[in-house]
Each structure stands twice: as C-alpha cells, then as structure tokens.
C-alpha cells in the first residue's frame, strides 16, 4: 500500500465519507459530473453520480448505450480525454480522492492498486511489441528490473488465467491470439501486480457466448481468490445476475437505482429498472417494452430524466429532480413514486 500511503494526506480532513480508510468501504464516488464540450453543445454525460464499492464485493454498473456507465469509470480512472472533463465530484479510493490526483500519481495507482480490463483486448495490447516485453514494461514501472524475474512472473500470471503454453504466447504478438486468448492476456496483465481493485468495462462484449462464460468464470475466480473488489460494467442483466453482488443501474448519466443483485432484479423499484427487466424476451410471455428514446443530453431535461418514457409520470416529475429513497434493506432508488411503507429515509 506504499503508493497510496504516499498520496494519502495527513488526517486533517475526513478521508472518505462513511468511515473510509481501512474500513469496509474501498471506493466511494459522490456527485461525479462529467461533460463533453462538442460542436453541438455541452453533453451532460455523467450528472452527479453516487455509488460505492465495499471490500470483497463485485459491483455491476448496468445500463443501455448512452447511460454514462463507461464515462463514469473512465472518469474515476482519469481516462477521460478532452473535449471531455470531470467538472465535479469526489471518488475516494481507500482514503485518496482519485479525482484530485495528478496524472503521474494516477498512472502509478493504476496497475499497482487498480487493474483495468478494457472491452477490446486488442486495443489494450501493443500490436508491434512482443507480449513478454509488455509484461516486462509493466513490472519495470513498478520496480521489477530483472528480465528473468519479469518472465517468471509473466509465465505464472498466464498460467493463472488458464493459458497452457505461456512461453509461446509470451514470445508472440497480439494478432496471433484469438479474442478469448487476448482477453486472457489482458486479464493477466491487470492482475499482475495484485491490485486491490479491478475495473472491467464490458470485458466479454466482443467474445463468443461460450468463451464469454469461460472468461467471466475466470475473472470471478481470480477476484475471489485474491480477495479483490471489482467494478464490472455491462449492458447484460444476465452478467449482473450471475456474477455480481450488488448492482448500480444508470440512465441518462444518473444512477437511478442500486442495491444487492437480488433486491434489484427480484424487486426493482425504479420504473426504468422494471422496464429493463421486462424487456428480456421470455417464451410464452408478452414482451413489455419502452416507447420513446433517451433524453437529449445537450438540452438535459429538468426533473426526472426518465419522465418522458415513464408510464407512471405525474406532476412533480417534470420539474423536480427526485431525491434518493433508501429502503430499510439498503436498496436505493431515485423516483417520486414512493410507497410509504417501504420508505425509511
């Protein structure tokens, strides 16, 4: 934890809300707001997002395209590039606000403390550099200077992700790998320095279904074995149901509901979450679908962003942004339609 210790300020200000530090909470994001300055106007991509990840948890972030899920994690990891910029919020990771870090410090943290698995493994791998050199570079940046040691550790990391002949992969290039193999290599790199926290952005979206299953099983096994926490971004509720502990549902750049996977999938409270679950085709059942489309993120609507598509919208939805409703179970949703009995705060 030396990297973090160096970055952690003396405790004159609260490190993180809700205890933070060495407590249960690993990541706490508050009020995260990210905008993109485009020729069409200012795009409100992420609008005051709050969520957290506890130690040992796998948290899913789910939503349809344009909901801001990828921009959210890219904001936290310092990967938003102009014309995008994070304009507000905090993201306390083990007591350090990631949004307040300089580029070099953040880069040091990525890899050592936070591993990142991108959607497209081939964009994460250097096409003109042998795989073993890419492993060696990561380790060199974190103090492993001996090529022999680097190779031993790379071999072990590849064996850990189920690659049978690691030397053949290490001596080759990315283009010689299948999609599934390339993603295994990226996972091995993300796990190389045993980070406490792993962020995966749609890690299996481009892969075949049977391979997807193998990769998700692999990621979960590694995260559990190493006692890591993970943020898993996906558009697939099946991935959430089978691989996550808690889930954060996003719509139009906002979190509209979060809770344990069981709470949210078995008893969704927000009309959008309900619609998303009903839109999955099930034999013998009529499809229930949403009409309309996402709100314009340039002229962001007042009130609830789901209002225009919501079957239950009523008067306040048009001009008042709904407050969080937190149930006794901890399940939280942002909607004016609250049933008194379920409400605690």
């Amino acid at each position, binding site marked *: 934890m030396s990297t973090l210790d160096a970055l952690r300020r003396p405790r004159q200000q609260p490190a993180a809300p809700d205890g933070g530090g060495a407590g249960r909470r690993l990541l706490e994001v508050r009020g995260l707001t990210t905008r993109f300055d485009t020729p069409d106007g200012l795009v409100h991509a992420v609008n005051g997002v709050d969520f957290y990840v506890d130690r040992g948890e796998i948290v899913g972030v789910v939503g*349809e*395209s344009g909901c801001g899920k990828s921009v959210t994690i890219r904001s936290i990891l310092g990967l938003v590039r102009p014309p995008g910029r994070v304009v507000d919020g905090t993201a306390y990771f083990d007591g350090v606000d990631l949004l307040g870090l300089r580029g070099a410090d953040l880069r040091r943290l990525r890899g050592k403390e936070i591993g990142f698995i991108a959607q497209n493994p081939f964009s994460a791998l250097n096409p003109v550099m042998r795989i073993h050199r890419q492993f060696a570079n990561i380790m060199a940046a974190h103090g492993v200077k001996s090529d022999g040691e680097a190779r031993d550790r790379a071999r072990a990391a590849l064996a850990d992700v189920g690659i049978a002949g690691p030397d053949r992969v290490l001596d080759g290039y990315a283009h010689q790998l*299948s999609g*599934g*193999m390339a993603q295994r290599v990226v996972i091995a790199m993300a796990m190389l320095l045993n980070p406490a926290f792993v962020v995966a952005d749609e890690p299996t979206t481009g892969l*075949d*279904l*049977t*391979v*997807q*299953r*193998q990769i998700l*099983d692999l990621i979960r096994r590694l995260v559990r074995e190493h006692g890591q926490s993970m943020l898993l971004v996906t*558009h*697939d*509720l*099946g*991935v*959430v*149901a*089978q*691989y996550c502990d808690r889930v954060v549902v996003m719509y139009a750049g906002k979190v509209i509901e979060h809770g344990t*996977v*069981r709470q949210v*999938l*078995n008893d969704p409270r927000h009309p959008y979450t309900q*619609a*998303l*679950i*009903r*839109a*999955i*085709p*099930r*034999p013998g059942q*009529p*499809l*229930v*679908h*949403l*009409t309309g*489309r996402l709100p314009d993120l340039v002229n962001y609507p007042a009130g609830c962003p789901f209002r225009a598509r919501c079957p239950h919208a009523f008067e306040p939805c048009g001009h008042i942004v709904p407050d969080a409703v937190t149930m006794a179970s901890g399940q939280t949703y942002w909607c004016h339609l609250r049933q008194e009995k379920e409400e605690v705060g």
Partner: protein
Amino acid sequence: MSLLELANVSKEFDLGGSTRVYALDDVSLSVNAGETLAIIGESGSGKSTLGRLALRLIEPTRGSVRFEGTDVLALSAAELRKLRAKLQIIFQEPFESLNPRMRVADIIGEPLAIHRSKMSVQDRRARVARVIEQVGLTPDMAKRYPGELSGGQQQRVGIARAIVTEPSLIVLDEPTSSLDLSVRAQILQLLADLQAELGMGYLFISHDIHTVRYVSDRIAVMYRGRVVETGPSEQVFADPQHPYTQALLAAALPVDPDQQLPPARLVGDPLSPTQRAHGCVLYGRCPVGEDRCIQTEVRLVPVAVDHEVACVKPGASGG
C-alpha cells in the same frame, strides 16, 4: 412444399495460396410459410453466410437452393431480380443499410420502383404510407433522413422497406443485435405482429439465445459451418442433445439471480476457420469427445420426430 429449401450446401472462400475458409459444410434446411426458423451460432459458425446464400447474394461452392420450388441458382440476373421482391433481407446495422441521403419515404418506396414499375405514383405513395403505419412509424417521419432517427426507428424503416413488396420470406440477420434491450423488445414484437398479419416465413439469424427462444418455431444450431442440431425450438431448448447446444444454452446467463448456473462445459477456443475438421467439428473442446469422434464422418441423425443431432453419442454430456 417448403418456401425455402437448401440442400447439401457448402461454401468455401479461397484466401489465396492453399488457405481456404470452410464457411459452410454440407448444410441442409428448409423454411415453411408463416414459420420462423432460427439459426443460432457464434461468430464464425457460418450463419450469416447461410443467410446471404439463401438470397443468392453469394453463390455456394456446392449444393442447391430452391425458393417456392424454383432453382434459385439457375436463374438469370433478370429472373433473380424479380424473385427478390418475394425474398427480402434485413440487416443487423440499420443505419449502415439505409442510404443516408434519401428520405425515409423514398427508401421504403425504392423496392416498389424496382419491382412494381407499373404502379402509379399515387398507388406507390399510398402503399408506402400504409407500410409506414404498419411498422409503427408516424407519418411525419416519411420526410426525414435516416440520421435523424433513433436506432429503433431506423430498424423500423429497414423492416418497412423489406415488407413493402409483400415478400413471402424474410432473412433477418441479427436484426436486433445492435439495439438496446428496451428497443429490441419493440422490434421483436413488431416482427411477430407482422408475421401473424402477413404470414411471411422468417429465417432468423442470431447469436442471442433469449431472442431465438422467444421468436422461433424451429431452430438450427450451427457450429463451424455445420448444423449440429436441429428441431422444434421447444424441444431443443428443453432437451438439447448435442454437447455444443448444451454448452450454448448453459452459456446464456439467466437474469434470475436465484437460478443456479450450470457448470461451463467447453474448454478452449474454436478451431481456426481455415482448418477443416475431420469428423466432429467440436472435437477438442467437447467434454465427452473420444477417438471415434474424429475417425468417422459425423452427420445429422434423427433422435426424435423432426429432431436431429450430429453427435456419435447424443445426450451424453447431460442436459
């Protein structure tokens, strides 16, 4: 009589040198009027090649394609053009398949201009307006350009264009894969409604098990250029016999967190498409494979009425 009948169709692509891609290997299937045959498979299974072959957008290396009894491969260019009015296709990426410089009404009306050249302008306009309504678009959208529409609306335009000539069969190549879940449901509903109303046959190509299960009457499971299992959907989903079908169904993640996930069945990655499989195409990834699987040709054999499986020991790896 079947609407569409493919018999022993193979397709090889020559990549130069001695490298060949074996995209389809001895595939036979048929689609009847008013029914949906779903082709399910992963990338490289040959399912899209199959769809294009059915319309003769590409020519098979071997085998025959019949549509309403006519040998499609023997048709002249002019005859083929005439046939296309009855045999349409809808692609995965709605935006890429629509001309961005044409207005919606012109895009939808274009097949009429080609196939119903004697139709009066007035009749054509009326037909386009009727179809716009049928696919759930509003009349004001007729004047818009594809870029002004959402993904779901664009796919409705694609569907309108496909049905405007009153085809008897539509090939749907992953028609909802690029759409978000909430929009996908709208399009599937629309396709089901149109089929009930117009009685068209669908050849529905998809890799999405939830979608296939919802839309299909019969199903053909493809892997590496071959049909490995085919039968009535309900039966195949309830009692899959081929180890690949079993793995594919096990890989579809149920949205119910309380539903236990069956163990993953396959190991490793698929063969390269330039390798021709001797015997079973799944050999090497199969949990129950044995030597005889690659020592003999493995072909579809019936296991129940209309239910065929290409496996030397069907059902062996458990349901």
